[in-house]
């Protein structure tokens, strides 16, 4: 099954390159691909507007240039293994960007290359494969399937991937124990606390071993203790090589990232690197120092 998948996505990749041929001349993207490993995320002049005419809302890409009338758009490159925090005030376009990166929404304009594949050239079925195999998405509002026990919840992406029942169960149980919920496998979402629900959501996102974990305010609804639990899991995932992009409003959460982006009015206005791409994330680099610098003392039981 997995071989079939990689074969499929391989075909997709070549197809995308061929499709990119006519308009690819102006993009430096192709050249970079020739020399190094392609970045996990590569975004060029991304725009997203909602509505039409006067009522149009420019959610991403910034205000149009007064002279040319063209928005600058968002350019973003995220390397393999990076851990990026996206910050910005409410309505600045963070979720809009994240939904496009997660292939849940399509941009109005611009190109998005995921692992070198132009997502714009994929059909419905290929997109569902990409969502299933390449991306793990964690929502601010958990978005668990109602009335479904935790184990079935985590098995779901594997079921869609066509993994056999026994193997599925084994991997789902492993993912659930990774997030510390081995004793809650039969609980339905309405029988779990918010933090536990979010950890189920994280387990569901990572069970297919995706190269990229996208999290839209994963700790937005959680207390400080649950926040630490979830962040510890994310830190460990990043340390094991997963690329992580997360949205947050809290500096405390942003402290865990290797790189912090700041959005204002749909444009990236600041890009600060806190730690190198290679190596463990700040929290695991020197745990004692990291904990000491915490704004408020926390119990270390979280990790």
């Amino acid at each position, binding site marked *: 099954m997995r071989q079939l998948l990689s074969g499929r996505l391989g075909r997709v990749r070549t197809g995308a390159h061929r499709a990119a041929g006519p308009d690819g001349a102006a993009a430096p993207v192709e050249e970079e691909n020739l020399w190094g490993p392609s970045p996990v995320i590569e975004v060029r002049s991304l725009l997203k507007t909602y509505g039409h005419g006067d009522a149009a809302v420019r959610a991403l890409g910034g205000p149009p240039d007064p002279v040319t009338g063209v928005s600058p758009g968002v350019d973003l490159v995220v390397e393999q293994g990076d851990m990026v925090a996206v910050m910005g005030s409410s309505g600045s376009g963070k979720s809009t960007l994240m939904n496009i990166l997660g292939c*849940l929404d399509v941009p109005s304009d611009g190109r998005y290359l995921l692992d070198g594949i132009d997502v714009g050239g994929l059909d*419905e079925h290929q997109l*569902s494969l990409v*969502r*299933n*195999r390449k991306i793990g998405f964690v929502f601010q509002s958990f978005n668990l*399937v109602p*009335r479904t026990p935790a184990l079935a919840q985590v098995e779901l992406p594997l*079921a*869609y991937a066509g993994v056999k029942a026994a193997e599925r169960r084994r991997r789902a149980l492993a993912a659930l124990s990774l997030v510390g919920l081995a004793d809650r496998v039969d609980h339905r979402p309405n029988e779990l606390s918010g933090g536990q629900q979010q950890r189920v959501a994280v387990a569901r996102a990572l069970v297919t071993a995706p190269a990229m974990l996208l999290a839209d305010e994963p700790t937005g609804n959680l207390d400080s203790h649950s926040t630490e639990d979830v962040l510890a899991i994310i830190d460990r995932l990043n340390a094991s090589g997963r690329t992580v992009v997360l949205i947050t409003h809290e500096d405390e959460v942003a402290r865990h990232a290797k790189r912090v982006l700041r959005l204002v009015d749909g444009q990236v206005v600041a890009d600060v690197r806190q730690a190198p791409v290679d190596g463990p994330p700040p929290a695991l680099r020197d745990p004692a120092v990291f904990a000491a610098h915490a704004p408020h003392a926390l119990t270390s039981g979280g990790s």
Partner: protein
Amino acid sequence: MNPFETLRFAVGGLAANKVRSGLTMLGVLIGVAAVIILLAVGNGSSQAVKDSIEKLGTNALTVSSGGGFGGSSAATSTKPLTVDDARALADPASAPDVESVAPEVTTSQTALYDGTSHSVNQVVGTYPAYFKASNSKVAKGDYFSADDVLNSRKVAVIGSTTATDLFGTASPVGRKIVIGGTPFTVVGVLDTKGGTGFQDPDDTVIAPLPTVQNAFTGFGPVSQILVEAKSADATTPAQNEITTVLMSQHGIKDSSALDFRVSSQASLLDTQASTNKTFTVLLGAVAAISLLVGGIGITNIMLVTVTERTREIGIRKAIGAPKGVILGQFLAESTLLSLVGGGLGVIGGLIGSRFTIVGIKPVVIPESVVGAFVIAVAIGLFFGSYPANRAASLRPIEALRHE
């Protein structure tokens, strides 16, 4: 996702809202059962008509007074039917295809026996040939004879309804009843004919023609003449012979200005059968409407279910569910609903058809069972797939934002 898993997902989806699933199933059940039962009732009643055609005898022809179906322009000179006409028809030389002839007079009278009074639907005065021609057989006792007719004896053969109403369980044979003030001796009781019409053919008294004429109607014209042809195939030539004989009897030259009418029992019953067909079609239409309502029920439920679960569809798509899998789940749900509902409807319809409904014994039409079931499932499939397809085609984020 193998089919078994899709099915498991679907069962889970239905079990999550048992009341709604149950009500939808009930709608389909009623629709399918109604089609089966109503069509069985219609079919049962036409079957009953067919049976009575055989009972009444297909060789019989009835001659009655009055113009043809087109209405008679020469109606002013209408001559009534008489015993002489009957005698002329019985002549084998001029009407070789006629087996026997029985002139009839009919009247309604009240019969009395031992303080019990019963108003008899039809008191018939006729000849013994009437019994064979009208396919009336005695169950007890005997027919009256030609001798009884010649001697105007006050004897009578009574129908089974008349017998039970007057005598209860006692045997009427040999007893005296008083009909319209005249005492009659019961010599025989007819077999039960049964019937579908409003008139009970078993509520009758049959007596020798001169006796009834003497007692009630007088020796004038007869009501009608019952003629039996030699065979079922001979009814048409017999009909022509009767027409020729009566035309000369009544002095009519123009065959378009007849003052009498010859009709076969079979053709009368054909008319009744076609009326019955209309009845069946009407019932079928009612049944089809109830099936349609059941189908709309499925559509509605699927629409509500899908709308309600659009967010869930969004979640499933976000974690990589292909459109086909989501579609499969909802399709399996609606198919299950209509399969189970339709199956129970078939069972309900077959059970319901075992009971007698408004005096009609339903006869199930196998095609209606298959048809109703197939239509129910097809409606479920078609209207189940439509809203699911709509939701599964949304972008994940649109579905997730759905309220």
